């Protein structure tokens, strides 16, 4: 029988993480069309962006984890997305993040990813998960480091040349 799934809403001091909705797609597609996505296989056209947007949302139904949009609590503005992906496109369960243009450098990705990571380790039977960063994407590597992840040189990569960061369940 079909298992019900629920997409959580997560609150942090500055951010609200909530389920993606159709109204989010135009800003998401605009971001995916820019060279800022070159470290994640982009730029992507609208059709490709649609597939990824739906895929990352579908992970909730298929795996019980998936993507959440990042809203600033003070302005209500959507500044990016954080998500946990799985399936044939990913060697292991993956934590990823992206910030729209103009919202970098304020710690939003770290704050959002930390909240989703904490949720994942409490809600899911996971011992560890990984993040893949492009070697040229220093900002994302800094986020991974701030999250406490460590480079796992033996882990399989998603794309050639990826750095694999491993997040372990924190001792409680």
């Amino acid at each position, binding site marked *: 029988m079909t298992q019900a799934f629920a997409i959580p809403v997560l609150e942090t001091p500055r951010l609200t993480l909530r389920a993606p909705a159709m109204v989010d797609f135009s800003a998401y597609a605009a971001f995916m069309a820019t060279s800022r996505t070159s470290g994640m296989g982009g730029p992507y056209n609208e*059709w490709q962006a649609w597939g990824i947007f739906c*895929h990352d949302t*579908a992970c909730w139904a*298929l795996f019980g984890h998936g993507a959440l949009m990042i809203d600033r609590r003070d302005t209500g503005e959507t500044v990016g997305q954080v998500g946990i992906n799985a*399936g*044939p496109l990913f060697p292991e369960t993956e934590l990823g993040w992206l910030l729209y243009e103009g919202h970098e450098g304020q710690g939003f990705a770290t704050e959002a990813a930390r909240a989703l990571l904490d949720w994942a380790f409490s809600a899911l039977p996971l011992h560890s998960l990984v993040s893949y960063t492009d070697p040229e994407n220093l900002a994302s590597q800094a986020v991974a480091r701030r999250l406490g992840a460590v480079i796992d040189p033996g882990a399989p990569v998603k794309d050639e040349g990826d750095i694999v960061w491993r997040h372990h369940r924190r001792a409680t």
Partner: protein
Amino acid sequence: MIQRPQHIAHPMAPVLTTARLLLRMPRYEDFAHRQAFYASDRAIWEGGPFARDEAWRIFASEVGQWPLMGFGPFSVDLDGTYVGEVGIYQPQGYPEPELGWFVVDGAEGKGIATEAARAVMVWAHDSFGWDHIDNYIDPGNARSIALGLRLGGVIVDAPGVDPGDVVIRHDLRAAI
């Protein structure tokens, strides 16, 4: 034009039952069947054949329509075994939500898609108040065109997705 619902009442597929079938939310295990279908020559009418990664992108993006749009694919079980999928699809570029179907090799010719499609059309009418729903079918896909017509649909001059698509319209106001 029929429109997507403003409020998402169904973030996942409800269970629908017919005389022989159970329609339900897709799950990860269903993908193996879609992968086999997309790898076969039967997928040429869907723009295939597709390798695993592309098949997965299509499968997952369709499943993602449920939380985003409130409609999407139903997996179809016969006696507890997956036999195909019938659903309502509206990826980017589709003029309206579309009725589509797929039956696994070996389950064809049993009226499964017909029976499931009727149930989905009744559900769509009851849930969204739509007066019609269309199929967009490649003109070479005679089998699917025949099924659309057998369901009572009529070929109309309306936009499809690809140039030359046969558009078959089903009147949902009639007692189905």
